[in-house]
């Protein structure tokens, strides 16, 4: 469930609850309202009935008021004396019998009766049922207290309530759908900058540290977040640059002392008057100096590649370049009993930095030879497809565990420490390859498993900058 859905769900849920409560209140209020009107109507009718009876006859007399009607509506009415002796009653009450409840206070009550006979103005249901609203009211007639039981049929009130219910239900449904739509659209608008931030943050890596998240117009929390992230990238970029500069400076400063040491050990090795023990020591220490020399050179090269994003492009034949590099390695391959299988088109040209591409080829081949097995094999393949040159180099050997694969391009990463100690400057070769490929806007990847072939794939655009 993503944030957009969550927001939609919460807003729509809250909206639904609110409108549900509102509808309930409205429904209850609307349902009570007609009864109150009816009750006061009945009270008014009772009062006017009492007045009329009082005027026209004595309460104990047998005189009749035949039709009691207000605004054309028929009322059901019975008049009782204090001791519940029935007195006057309306026509309808002869036909329909309604129960008398005296303890209802000021409220009316609803009664359902079945009337078998069809009577005009009495809106009976299918089985003759009629709802009556009944009130029992005390009134003074002719100076004596009486009880008036008065009622009216309720016509379509029940149907109206059912209508109200369905209308409210539909309104509730419609408003919920509307809420879901509106809040979904709205949540999308809220979340969009977050998605932008997310996308850009993913895009920014070690090599694209210069990128920044564009700031929105409104200074809201997301603006702040973008701003904070940008500041963080500033700091990262600064420290990355500082670290690279440090590496460059350090390797540059190391050059002179190492040069001094090399000269010293070169000369010391020429001396014939040294005791033999000492001479051996000079030679073995000299090896360490050479290793250091190699390391400093590689470090310097790597830092120059990292700091200066500059290439010297030219058009050259990759076929010739590969062949000359393979030629340089040829005797070594024979000596190491490594079988070489080359699949190379005869006319592969490209535009790029020839010196650096040569360096890259040397480094990956060097790697394939160093970490090969006795009587091993190397397969080199180059093809051109869709404006890209795909180089792949497969070699036998101990293989590389899956967990280490990504790290082989890191500086000073060596899968097998002891084996690499025989070589100088190791641990930087593939890091240099990665930098050269990056500068050419290409891609390099490695695939291997313990005991399996190791495969390095390099993809380079055929025309740098095209």
């Amino acid at each position, binding site marked *: 469930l993503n944030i957009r859905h969550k927001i939609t769900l919460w807003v729509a849920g809250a909206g639904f609850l609110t409108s549900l409560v509102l509808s309930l209140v409205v429904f209850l209020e609307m349902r009570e309202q007609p009864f109150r009107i009816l009750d006061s109507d009945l009270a008014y009718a009772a009062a006017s009935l009492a007045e009329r009876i009082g005027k026209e006859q004595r309460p104990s007399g047998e005189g009749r008021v035949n039709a009691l009607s207000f605004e054309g509506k028929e009322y059901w009415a019975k008049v009782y004396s204090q001791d519940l002796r029935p007195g006057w009653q309306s026509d309808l009450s002869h036909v329909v019998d309604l129960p008398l409840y005296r303890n209802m206070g000021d409220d009316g009550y609803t009664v359902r009766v079945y009337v078998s006979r069809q009577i005009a103005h009495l809106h009976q249901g299918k089985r003759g049922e009629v709802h009556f609203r009944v009130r029992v009211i005390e009134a003074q007639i002719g100076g004596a207290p009486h009880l008036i039981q008065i009622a009216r049929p309720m016509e379509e009130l029940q149907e109206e309530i059912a209508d109200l219910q369905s209308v409210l239900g539909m309104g509730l449904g419609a408003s919920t759908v509307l809420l879901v739509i509106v809040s979904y659209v709205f949540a999308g608008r809220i979340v969009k900058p977050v998605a932008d931030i997310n996308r850009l943050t993913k895009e920014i890596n070690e090599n694209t540290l210069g990128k920044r998240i564009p700031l929105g117009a409104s200074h809201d929390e997301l603006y702040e977040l973008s701003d904070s992230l940008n500041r963080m990238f500033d700091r990262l970029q600064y420290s990355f640059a500082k670290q690279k500069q440090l590496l460059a400076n350090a390797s*540059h400063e190391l*050059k*002179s002392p*190492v*040069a*001094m*040491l*090399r*000269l*010293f050990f*070169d*000369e010391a*090795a*020429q001396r014939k008057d040294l005791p033999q023990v000492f001479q*051996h020591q000079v*030679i073995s220490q*000299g*090896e360490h100096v*050479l*290793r250091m*020399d*190699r390391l*400093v*050179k590689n470090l*310097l*090269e790597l830092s*120059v*590649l990292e700091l200066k994003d500059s290439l*010297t492009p030219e058009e050259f034949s990759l076929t010739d370049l590969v062949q000359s590099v393979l030629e*340089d390695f040829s*005797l*070594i391959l024979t*000596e190491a009993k490594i079988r070489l299988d080359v699949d190379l088109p005869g006319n592969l040209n490209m535009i790029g930095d020839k*010196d650096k591409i*040569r*360096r890259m080829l*040397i480094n990956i081949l*060097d790697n394939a*030879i*160093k970490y090969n097995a006795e009587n091993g094999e190397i397969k080199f393949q180059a093809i051109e497809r869709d404006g890209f040159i795909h180089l792949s180099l497969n070699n036998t050997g101990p293989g590389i565990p899956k967990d280490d694969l990504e790290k082989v391009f890191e500086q000073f990463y060596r899968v097998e420490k002891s084996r690499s100690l*025989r*070589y*100088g*400057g*190791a641990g930087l*070769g593939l890091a240099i390859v990665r930098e050269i490929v990056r500068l050419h806007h290409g891609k390099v990847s490695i695939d291997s498993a313990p005991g399996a072939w190791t495969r390095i794939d390099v993809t380079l655009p055929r025309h740098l900058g095209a």
Partner: protein
Amino acid sequence: VRILLVDDEADIREQLGRVLAEQRYNVDTAGDGEKALDRIFDQPYDLIVLDIMLPKRDGLTVLKEIRLSGIRTPVLMLTARGKIDDKIRGLDQGADDYLAKPFSVAELLARVRALLRRASENAAPILKAGDIELNTISREVRSSAGSIQLTPKEFSILEFLLYNKNRAVSRFSLAEHVWGEDFDPFTMSNYIDVHVKNLRCKIGDFDGTLIRTIRGIGYIIQEEDR
């Protein structure tokens, strides 16, 4: 033969100065660009070894100035590795060769000798040892038995050993020289022995008396000058 060595580090001046003096060169030194120019305009040299990073005037400025004033003395530039710009600019402005620091003494001596030979028009471009003659320009190798065909790598090894005659040359320096600095000399030096073995066969040095092996170090071509 007079050589001017320009480097801002006193230790390197001293060390390199001694190495060159041992090879019977006459060595003057200068620690900055201005002193270097003073010396160059003061007296003629056969070769100038010039570091790029110098106080007061840098190596490229010095080079430009001496070329502008018509001095054609060969110049060997010392530079930092990876600074391809320096290399190109140096060669554009009339440097004859360049060498990246740190370098081996053998490499320096080989370059110095090659430059000196190229510069002196009357000196024959031929290096000799025993009955072997190597022509550095036509790249031919002859012995008393006739012409010898060498692979480029074998030629390169023989030439390097001859330039460093009477000095032990390590496998590592040989690897650096033969394959260049892009290759890992630690990998390549393991295979120098194979090349030397093939080379010895071709020049008829089957018992290793001309190219002598020095255990733990490398090889030497030793011969007293006659």
